[in-house]
């Protein structure tokens, strides 16, 4: 069974089409990344899936329940971690979780054990009696992830889980998310605009201007962009270029002071290159296309360029809240 099914989902705010009839499916147990610049429709989509915003058209089911007709069942089966903290700073970490357990109706005999389990998972158990207002940004995010898991949701939604955190903390959060998918029977749906984080996902959907541009695994997406880039340093670049063209039928040119060309799978090509080129090679580098290249090739802009563009759906969502 798929964890999330979305059919022709649409949301318009007045005349602005924030989400323009998207379709996709998230398989049970996968980490699914929703990638796009701010204003692309990520938050609107996630809000519809979490039953916070009603769709204008189309339908969606989460954990087998319709997001409009079976709102409470959906809510019962999802965990949510928002971009902005939603903790009570005046309560202790444990009190925050206890509050959540009661609201979600976690069976009473299981509450204490489950709280300890999720807090240990994010390494906050020793801080359980500290007021949340004394926590750093990273600790708050970890606590929110723990809280999102407390009621054993089938799908965990993470909206920009690492935004605004320092690199070490980001790495730590990813560590927890990885650990989590090994320990719990859960599907993770996350949005991000950090390209490097998208690599952690099983599959990625790229969304831009309210439409899904492409969905696939990071590897397949990178492969679809094309070839690896190989750069070699030789004693005689002109001879090397001629040799490449004659022996392999590859067009090469000098970029950044090195002979540069593209091949389908660079790592496998390098041994042949050494054996057959007939010239001494001083150095070689192979680089695979990055997700930045993928984003670029599908949307025609880098994610940073796209962000400086128009439309800020997040602000709109805040105003409407």
């Amino acid at each position, binding site marked *: 069974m798929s964890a999330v099914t979305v059919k022709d989902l649409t949301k318009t705010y007045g005349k602005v089409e924030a989400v323009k009839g998207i379709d996709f499916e998230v398989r049970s*147990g996968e980490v699914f990344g929703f990638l796009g610049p701010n204003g692309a429709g990520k938050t609107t989509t996630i809000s519809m899936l979490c039953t916070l915003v009603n769709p204008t058209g189309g339908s969606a089911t989460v954990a087998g329940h319709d997001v409009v007709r079976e709102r409470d069942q959906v*809510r019962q089966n999802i965990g949510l971690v928002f971009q902005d*903290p939603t903790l009570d700073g005046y309560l202790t970490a444990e009190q925050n979780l*206890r509050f959540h357990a*009661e*609201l979600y*109706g976690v*069976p009473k005999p299981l509450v204490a054990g489950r709280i300890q389990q999720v807090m240990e998972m994010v390494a906050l158990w020793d801080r359980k009696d500290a007021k949340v207002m004394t926590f750093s940004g990273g600790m708050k995010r970890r606590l929110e992830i723990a809280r999102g898991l407390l009621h054993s949701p089938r799908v965990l939604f993470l909206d920009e889980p690492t935004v605004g955190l320092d690199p070490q903390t980001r790495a730590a959060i990813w560590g927890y998310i990885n650990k989590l998918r090994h320990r719990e029977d859960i599907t993770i749906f996350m949005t991000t605009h950090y390209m490097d984080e998208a690599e952690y996902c099983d599959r990625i959907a790229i969304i831009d201007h309210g439409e899904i541009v492409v969905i696939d695994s990071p590897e397949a997406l990178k492969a679809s962009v094309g070839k690896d880039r190989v750069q070699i340093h030789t004693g005689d670049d002109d001879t090397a270029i001629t040799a490449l063209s004659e022996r392999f039928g590859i067009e090469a040119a000098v970029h950044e002071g090195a002979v540069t060309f593209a091949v389908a799978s660079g790592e496998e090509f390098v041994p042949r290159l050494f054996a057959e080129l007939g010239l001494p090679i001083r150095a070689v580098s192979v680089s695979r296309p990055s997700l930045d290249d993928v984003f670029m090739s599908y949307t025609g802009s880098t994610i940073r360029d796209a962000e400086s563009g128009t439309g800020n759906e997040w602000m709109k969502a805040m105003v409407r809240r």
Partner: protein
Amino acid sequence: MTTTDPSTRDDVVSVRMPARGLAHDLRAIKVVLHREMLRFVNDRTRMLSMLIQPVLWLFVMGTGLGTLVRGSIPGVDYRTFMYPGMISMTVIMTAMFSAGSIVWDREFGFLREMLVAPVSRGSIVVGKCLGGAVVAVGQGVVILAMAGLVGVPYSPGLMVTLLAEMFLAAFTITAFGVTLAARMRNMQTFFGLMQMAIMPMMFLSGAMFPLANLPSWLHVLTTVNPLTYAVDPMRQAVFSHLSVPAQAQAVLNPGVRWFDWQVPVPVELGLIALIGLTLLGLAVAQFRKAE
């Protein structure tokens, strides 16, 4: 990254939820109420400031004004007259502050945590209102403890009556506050509006001066002021436990009259309860709509 084989998973306490029902909503009400109390107990400054205000009114203002009016109310200490008024004032202020915490919760994001939970909006609003009422009654108990200082007897019947009346008043005021707060986005606006609404209502409620022999325009205003019906039962309860000369009784405890009809206490209490429930319904509707 591959999907994990279930057999290699650690033994996870899997928590599967029971179906939602009345018991779940009651649990939600209880935990929202519990949080209000935790927050109140943790906030010593708020507790203290809420206590100092009525003490100032009662013992400083009350003593000062009391010397001025002593001649016209023979046999009664002005502070005794003010006492039920101060109870209601404390209860009202505390209840409004509790309601204001909804705006605070929204500003700091915690309201979202409550609104996305699989519970009805109603149980969250009811929890908030009960929380406000319980906290206000707690604050009122401290004022009750001062009864002896202003010549009000510590009769168990009186104390229980006053506590019940406080609870009712506080519940209604919190519901009023929550209705106001439902759409508000910042604390300043809320407290500005609250001052604007509460101050005139308090002045016109009979908390500070008796509602007898007023000019007719003022009399009309006091009669339409809902707070009047929260303050009057408390005063009636206190005065029924004092021996006051009939003349002073008529001046200080005239009750409320609709034209020629003396409104009995049960009707007053019923009115407050009705207003409270109406406001509660309104608040729930506001939160449903706000989504």
